[in-house]
């Protein structure tokens, strides 16, 4: 056994002391909802491969109030992920030079959010068009 007991600065709750890090932990935390949602879809895919009865069990299961509550939370979390993804984008992508000037952060974030909104509405329209 190691007899030395060096001082280790405690880390618990460090991020709660600074609003910047609280926001950081929330936007990193959206990954838990993305993962859980993907696993729900994967479960659905496996049930689909097992035939109609199995698929209907999965589909009925989604009506469970706990699943509904989860999906409301997931909707909020993933929407927040969309917002932060494009908010950070000016710093995660190489600078864009237009007419000798650097494209402002607002343009990149705003453009990204506009594309995301369009993509979501297009997806809804596509699903509606196919299902109708």
């Amino acid at each position: 056994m190691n007899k030395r007991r060096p001082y280790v600065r405690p880390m618990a709750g460090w991020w709660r002391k600074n609003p910047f890090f609280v926001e950081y932990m929330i936007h990193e935390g959206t990954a838990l909802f993305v993962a859980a949602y993907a696993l729900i879809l994967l479960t659905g895919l496996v049930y689909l491969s097992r035939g109609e009865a199995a698929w209907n069990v999965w589909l009925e299961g989604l009506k469970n109030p706990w699943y509904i509550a989860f999906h409301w939370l997931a909707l909020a979390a993933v929407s927040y992920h969309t917002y932060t993804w494009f908010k950070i984008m000016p710093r995660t992508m190489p600078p864009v030079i237009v007419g000798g000037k650097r494209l402002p952060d607002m343009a990149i974030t705003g453009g990204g959010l506009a594309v995301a909104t369009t993509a979501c509405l297009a997806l809804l329209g596509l699903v509606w068009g196919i299902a109708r």
Partner: protein
Amino acid sequence: MKKTLKRSNAPIFWALFGAGGMLSALLGPMLVFITGLAIPLGMLLPVDTMSYAKMLAFAQNIVGKGFIFAIISLFLWHAAHRIFHSLHDIGIHAGIVAKLICYGGALAATLVTAYTLLAIGF
């Protein structure tokens, strides 16, 4: 000196993270709304939108297969990478074991997705 330079594998994981992050940012909210809320609660869309016949046809279609595979696997690679890099922040050592669990989990789920999509047939 070593004859071959050791190259980092980080860009691969980062690319998968980026692709999954972009896909979930663009389509995530609407996907969650459609499969998790609109269909179970009977809102907005026709009730049989996700019926067995329709979903089977979608999963048997080559475009549908690609879409399902991209959504499930890239969402998980994105989440795995983000969770792995947040472990240190919550006081968990992000070592080789944590790496194997995070990326290994995403890889396992990717293989299950691919296998199931192939099992469903064309």
